[in-house]
């Protein structure tokens, strides 16, 4: 956590203070995504887990970058996850390239899964958010905790800050009054935390969605994944990791 504070203090021109709140309309955020691999596998297949647990890492880290303003944003992997030949864990849904247009309320997202690369074009994800009174500081910003329900069944815990006026977040998660800097989806045993927030000298004019892939809407993509993967515990996680 100390590391995050340090990084944040380099990037933030001013630290928090009474009445000195500043607001930023453009951001470049580095996220660290953590998958609790052991917990994930234990849930997917507890018998199998008992056998392979020594060959699984406790957690797996990957890195993402979010660049955007109040009009649009792009979220994508910033560096490739190091390959560990000995690990039984292979990342899932880790190469989504999410472009959100907040004015039009649409998303254009590239989602590679197995042999297919989908180019999802649909409205922004509809998430039922509940706000709580909990706050915590992430990357130097005070964030409020919100609990979201996605697809009516999937819980999303998000920490957003009022100080960044972009209403985005990791992957396709958005719709809160401020920028999401910390997020957890227990069903995927995954968290995303901002490690670095840059608010000056961020160019957002040239942000553009990915263009390659099979054009689908959310329903079509879901159907084509669901018909093959639904009877498979790992497959269900894959569907969710791809749909968010």
């Amino acid at each position, binding site marked *: 956590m100390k590391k995050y504070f340090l990084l944040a203090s380099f990037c933030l021109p001013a630290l*928090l203070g*009474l*009445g000195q*709140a500043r*607001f930023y309309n453009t951001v470049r955020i580095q996220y660290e995504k*953590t998958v*609790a691999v052991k*917990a994930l596998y234990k849930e997917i297949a507890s018998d199998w887990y008992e*056998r*392979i647990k020594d*060959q699984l890492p406790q957690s797996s880290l990957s890195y993402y970058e979010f660049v955007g303003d109040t009009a649009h944003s792009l979220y994508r992997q910033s560096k490739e996850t190091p*390959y560990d*030949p*000995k690990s039984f864990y292979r990342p899932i849904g880790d190469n989504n390239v999410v472009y959100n247009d907040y004015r039009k309320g649409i998303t254009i997202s590239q989602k*590679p*899964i*197995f*042999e*297919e690369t989908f180019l999802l074009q*649909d409205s922004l994800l*509809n998430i*039922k*958010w*509940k*706000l*709580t*009174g909990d706050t*915590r500081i992430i990357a130097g910003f*005070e964030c409020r*905790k*919100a609990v979201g329900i996605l*697809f*009516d*069944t*999937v819980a999303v*815990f998000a920490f957003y*800050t*009022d*100080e960044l*006026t972009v209403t985005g977040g990791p992957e396709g998660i958005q719709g*809160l*009054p401020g920028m999401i800097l*910390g*997020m957890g989806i*227990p069903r995927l045993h*995954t*968290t995303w*935390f901002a490690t670095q927030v840059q608010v000056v000298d961020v160019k957002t004019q040239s942000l553009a969605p990915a263009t390659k892939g099979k054009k689908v*809407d*959310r*329903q079509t993509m*879901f159907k084509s*994944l669901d*018909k*093959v*993967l639904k*009877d498979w515990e790992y497959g*269900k996680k894959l*569907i969710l990791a791809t*749909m968010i």
Partner: protein
Amino acid sequence: MRKLTAVLLVFLFSCLAANAQSASIKGTITDTLEKKNLSHAVIVVLTKKDSSLISFARSDNRGIFSIPGLAPGDYLLMVTYPGFADYADDLSVQPGDSRDLGVIAMTPKSKILQEVVIRTGSAIRIKGDTTEFTADSFHVKDGATVEDLLKVLPGFTVNSKGEITAQGKRVDKVLVDGEEFFGDDPTVATQNLGAKIVDKVQIFDTKTDQDKLKGIGGGSDTKTLNIKLKEDAKKGYFGKLEAGTNLNQYTDAKALFNRFVGKKKLSLYGTKSTTSTGSLGWDDRNKLGIENDYEYDEIGGYYYSFGTNDDFSNWSLQGLPNAYSAGGLYSDKWNGDINSLNLNYRYNRLGTTNVGSTLKQTLLQDTTFYNNESTRSSGVKQQHVASGKYDWKIDSLATLTFRSTGTYKTSQSSTHTSSEALDENHQYVNTGDRTNDLNSTHKQLDNQLTYNQLFHKKGRQLIATFKYSLVRDDNTSSLFSNNQFFKKGILDSTSITDQSKIGQGDSRTFGTKVTYNEPLTKFFNLVSEYSYNDNHSTSHLNTYEKDGDGKYTVLDPLYSNNFDLHAFSHTGTVTLRYLNKKLKYAFGGGLSAIQLRLNNLDHSTRNIYNFTNFTPQAQISYNLKAQTSIGFRYNGTTRQPTLDQLQPIRNNNDPLNIQVGNPNLKVGFNHSFNAWYNSFKILSSRYIYMGAGYNILEHSITTYNTIDSFGKVTSMPVNVNGNNNWYLYSGWQLGQGDKKLTHGMDLNLNGGRNVTFINGQQSINSYASFEVGYRMGYSVQEKYNFSLNPQLGRSISSSSLRKDVNNNYWTYGGQVNGFLMLPGKVELNSDVNFDLRQKISAFDRNTNIIVWNASLGKKVFKDKSGKFIFTANDLLNQNKGYSRIINSNFVTDQRYQRVGQYFMLTFQWTFSQMPGKN
């Protein structure tokens, strides 16, 4: 996921209903302290019921905001601004309202330091931010719940609604053994679990799920309670009983039981069968945890298990069985899984009776022999196997494993064989009758100690293994044979053998292996291995003939062998491995020095054989894209002659087929080339696989057969060049899952060239076979399914000695399987297997077998735990054991008995009691 589908669809098609009567609100946000308007403040409208976010806005430069499009109703208005306390107020809007909320004043946040009182005591421990109470230290009445226990714990209060306050903070989460207990209502756990089963109560600050995953806590004003149950409170059992009979000669019964108490697990099973060997299926074995004995190759990065070549598996069953088996498994882990123990015992008893026949055709250059043989046999095999495995994780880097297995096997059998050999004119060459009786015991003890050490440098690893085994064999057998030999169809001579044999063998093996992996770079690893193996064995086999008193005391030195053998080897291997996401390759080689010192105790001679074996290997594989890979492998293997090939134990159990040794055998060498391609498209469920391989054998060991005019075959191993074989397999499959047509094709080819010798003449035998199959299936769960799998194949072989003989034939057949749920939830299953072969000139027996099995099943009881099954096995009564082997100049057609047609009624009952279930 179905629910997710439905919900998702609703979401996708729902759009916000434009409401003509929608209301709007506006207002201004100010700072009470500095009396200035606040811009960028977040104004959110939440539902009053559950704080769901309805809409939000930001205040502008002048602190003014407006939120349009609100449906009429009761809301909560919340205003937030960094560094200020949240403002919240009720908001009620009427249809068509346009409300001005006026000025909303925000107050800066003031910090309140909270003190935490730490209590100590023998029953209370504080670890980091966790306070732990030992439940048994606090007295509660019998039948008390966890809630009653909490009421007596220091610092806890529980109100009438069951809400808990601990250390001045609200408890918002109750976990049982670190996991949520039936959702997040804390009272479910506290009011339903008995206090007696609680080991410890832990209280700590509530962390978000993210914190928990990351192990980092954030500030929080609520507490989480974790109730740790006593190990023995995690109890449960499950089992299965099954019994079936045809009210006549066939009965099958099976009982399985598994009980677990915490990490202790006990499984017991017993079976009896007259239709199979009674060995448990994979499913049952897995349930009982018997199949869990996998090993992981740390260096290679793959799993393996030693397949025990079992005399009691259904695969090797010939004849009619009468089988019993029983076993048990106990496992436990303790000390936080640092120590674990597995104990395993099983007993098998398999009695079989068999009537079989073998037809054999021997093709010589100038003539053809026919051998017809019929056997009647009966026997009983029994075995007791006890094994144990103990694992000790010494620390985070070192592990010690000890495993030990003891086996005791006995076998009694009696076989009567009648044989006749005919020449090409179908005139007798020889006829014979023989009876072999055998009584044997086998005792074996294997011990293995493995030490595994990891290092702080990632990837560096040392594994040392020590093995020690003891084997003792005792057997007695008797042979009575009467053979007549003919010349031109006229009896020429008779030979009678009446002998008793006593055998005894002892073997002691010590072995050690050390493997070391050194990561050279991120992607390169160097694996070095050294092993030493040392075996001392003695073998005594003495054959006695009858003396004048009819007792077997006269030694027959020709068929008596007594020797001791000392064999030892040193082996070193070095492999360089490269592993990356797309490309993987490895190459290296091994060298072993082997010495066999053979003392012949009968002749007091000593032979020393030295062999040097070399094993080069290389492998490369490349991932073309996701789920598509291509690879190539080369292996070079030395083929060392076996002791039997160098100096066989002279054996006259079948006086018409005699094996002799060849001490001049050279070491053979096998070059093996393999290539493969796999492509799996998961979303479109398409799978393509193919592979091909080619083996060239240098100095390969083949047989030199000498057949005398009486049809007696003497075989001797010799070295030969020019042997090779090849194979190709490929398949394509499309579709999978419920309500989808799945179909596929596969094609397999193989062939080769074998050189053998018959009566001094070289015989070059070429063979090839191909098989093509098509599969299709369709299933609707709980309703019906069917699958169809026709197959066509052809087998081709030729011998240079007999170009005139045609042993080529077609095979065709396949399977048809189906399931149908009949009215009244009666399940009908049917499967038919067609195995049809073209007759070849050598044999005129019917070679077509069609086996049709069917069953009707009905589940009974409210929880469907019982099931009646009526089985019809082999409806067409054609189930015969059959195998055909075409081997250079011999064509063999073998038949044996199998359980044929029967009708059986079986009842199955499964039961279970799991924790948390009543």
